């Protein structure tokens, strides 16, 4: 089967699955799944850039999505003036001390030759900076967190529309990725995985505990939306008439007395579907843009060089390619995409909850998506994102159903039955592992394999 037919077939099946959910469960559920499918697809495109193009095992996906989420908060929330006047100066001063310290160290490294003197000077600068920081930073943190701690207690953001955060989230993630990449790239593949896994935990720990930044585990909720609110739709004329036109045939069957109530119900349901559709349109546009860019990159000389480096590092470096720099570049690019996806996710949720970032869901699940979909193939990664998210969500009710069926001969009150039914949701983890292992074993190139062109 040629690749195009294969891809068309796979995506048709995927669309049919989503439609089935729409018809049999509800359109609300189907659209909720679709929205997260779209975001997952962006995430797996990001991982695909790193793993599929360049063979980098980044196990810190979670950190970059969280950074994107952080960007959503810092961009969209209104600034807390009181907190800024209480601790803003101290915070800026601390930032200045950190930057000055780094600048001095960089200059020292340039001026002094390597040796004990340079080490001593560097250590002294670090200690001096830490002592200076201690006095300013902690005071600033305390005064910021003291400002109305139940509601704010943080510096707030810029008060800009949340859509800007998609770009800013990418920039945040790229900046942190650059830092991590300069440190950790050049390690062997599985060490890179361990290092990035560790660093991602540090990033999450910082976001969780630095309350002045985004309230930490106290969460920021009620972020502004790029789409209208349901209640606004329910009260606007054009929307009600739109719903009326769509539901004409159904409404016509009802008596005059029942009609307003039915219309009311339809408007409520319709508004929630409409909001989700708006999100879907936004996410789909973003996904298509990134997909288009990825396709361009993969088919360009740059993409060919990346694949050459991936397939044989030594040969590529013998041909004069700077492997470490290219790795850093592709790592930063992939992380930027992950940051965008993270910002999209927080935009959809309308809240930022650092406590929910866990490696199983935000790192390893994305990996399953890429490998199942087809690493090195952009469409494959997108398909993986859709399919695995769909299975991840639908496996829960499905395993519950299966478990209920299997235990139906047992007594309702029996401890076995309650335990089995209660534990059924955990089976989806098992399913994910199984799918990953099966694909890896029997079809290691994924559902939509990478196209290898031979001239």
């Amino acid at each position, binding site marked *: 089967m040629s690749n195009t037919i294969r891809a068309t077939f796979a995506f048709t099946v995927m669309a049919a699955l989503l439609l089935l959910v729409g018809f049999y469960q509800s359109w609300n559920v189907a659209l909720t799944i679709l929205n997260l499918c779209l975001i997952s697809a962006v995430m797996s495109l990001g991982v695909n850039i790193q793993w599929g193009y360049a063979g980098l095992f980044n196990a810190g996906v979670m950190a970059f999505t969280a950074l994107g989420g952080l960007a959503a908060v810092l961009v969209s929330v209104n600034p807390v003036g009181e907190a800024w006047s209480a601790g803003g100066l101290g915070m800026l001063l601390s930032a200045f001390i950190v930057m000055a310290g780094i600048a001095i160290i960089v200059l020292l490294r340039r001026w002094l030759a390597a040796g004990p003197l340079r080490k001593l000077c560097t250590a002294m600068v670090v200690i001096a900076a830490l002592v200076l920081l201690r006095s300013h930073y902690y005071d600033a943190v305390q005064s910021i967190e003291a400002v109305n701690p139940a509601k704010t207690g943080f510096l707030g953001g810029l008060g800009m529309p949340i859509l800007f955060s998609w770009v800013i989230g990418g920039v945040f993630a790229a900046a942190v990725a650059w830092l991590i990449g300069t440190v950790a790239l050049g390690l062997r593949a599985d*060490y890179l995985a*361990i290092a990035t896994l560790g*660093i991602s935990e540090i990033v999450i720990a910082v976001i969780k505990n630095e309350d002045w930044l985004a309230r930490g585990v106290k969460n920021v909720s009620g972020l502004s939306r790029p789409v209208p609110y349901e209640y606004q739709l329910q009260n606007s004329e054009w929307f009600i008439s739109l719903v009326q036109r769509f539901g004409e045939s159904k409404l016509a069957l009802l008596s005059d007395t029942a009609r307003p109530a039915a219309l009311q119900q339809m408007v409520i349901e319709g508004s929630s579907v409409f909001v989700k559709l708006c999100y879907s349109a936004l996410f789909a546009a973003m996904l298509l843009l990134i997909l288009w860019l990825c396709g361009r990159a993969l088919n360009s000389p740059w993409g060919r060089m990346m694949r050459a480096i991936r397939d044989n590092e030594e040969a590529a470096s013998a041909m004069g390619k700077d492997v470490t720099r290219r790795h850093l570049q592709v790592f930063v690019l992939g992380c930027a995409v992950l940051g965008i996806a993270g910002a999209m996710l927080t935009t959809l949720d309308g809240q930022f909850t650092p406590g929910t970032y866990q490696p199983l869901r935000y790192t390893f699940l994305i990996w399953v998506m890429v490998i199942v979909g087809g690493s090195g193939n952009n469409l494959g990664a997108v398909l993986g994102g859709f399919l695995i998210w769909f299975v991840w969500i639908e496996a829960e009710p499905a395993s519950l159903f299966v478990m209920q069926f299997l235990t139906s001969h047992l007594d309702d009150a029996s401890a076995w039955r309650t335990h089995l039914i209660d534990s059924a949701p955990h089976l989806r983890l098992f399913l994910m592992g199984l799918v990953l292992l099966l694909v890896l074993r029997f079809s290691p190139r994924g559902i939509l394999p990478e196209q290898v062109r031979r001239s």
Partner: protein
Amino acid sequence: MPETIDVLNAITLLANFVLLPALSYGSQLALGALGVTLIFGILRFANFAHGDTMAFGTMIAILITWWFQSLGLSLGPLPTALLALPFAILATAIVVIIFDKTVFSFYRRQKSPPVMLAIASVGVMFMMNAIVRFIIGPDDQRFADGEKFIIKAREFKTMTGLNEGLAIKSTTVLTVVITLIVVTALFWFLQRSRTGKAMRAFSDNEDLALLSGINPERIVLVTWIIAAALATIAGVLYGLDKSFKPFTYFQMLLPIFAAAIVGGIGQPIGAVVGGYVIAFSELSITYAYKKFLKYLLPEGSEPEGLAQLLSTDYKFAVSFIILVVVLLVRPTGIFRGRVL
């Protein structure tokens, strides 16, 4: 100069809150890191499923402990879980060998790059995690019984007349003693026994080992059995000391990796040292030294704040920071493990 009694008080304080907890946590990490490092040395991949192997072994131990408790079996002052330990090791070994035969052996035969094995171990991690959560649930389980303390803080105070108490938990002593026995036995095995020597030879140079007639399948089998035993022992000791929760065990993966890498991956002695390095730094960096300094410094000059290097919230991050620093400064680790 502070008086002798103050110095003693300060030392007791530090021993109670830093030294003893770090000693037991470090032992648990060391056992876990030994398993990771052995797998890395022989099978040459980073096993992401090790944390969940620990959880699996501990779960079996807990289930058998409950069964023994219902039968009225006990070890008196020692926890019943010790009695269950051999059975749990057996079960865990069987499970990891099944996973090896069905999953890892294929990639070994294919001579796949190590990263493929690491990704396959992610799949195994998912499955193990699911099995544990399915059988015992995601919640906290306590299964420690027997004597809780060898010396209680109050007893210590009346015994010595010091202000500060030193509580010695029986699980701490148990952990340290068992670790000592296990590590000694393992080193004896690796250095002296025929299979152990074969394992080391295999780890040093696979081709040469194969040429001299070492059976690779046997080596791999023994490695998995030892790794399963180490993981189960580490998991049970950690569970006795604190409590059992699948998610915590999954998270243990990182300090364990950190310990193995800090010590020098592929080096058993490095894993042990690395375990203690990680544990001691985690606890000593996040400990508030205010009271400690109060005993030692002359009156009036004690620090205003808590005198804490890093807030306790970052306790978990310390091991990763050490890991990153080691990867930067000396990527082969303390004992010169494999080149990365």
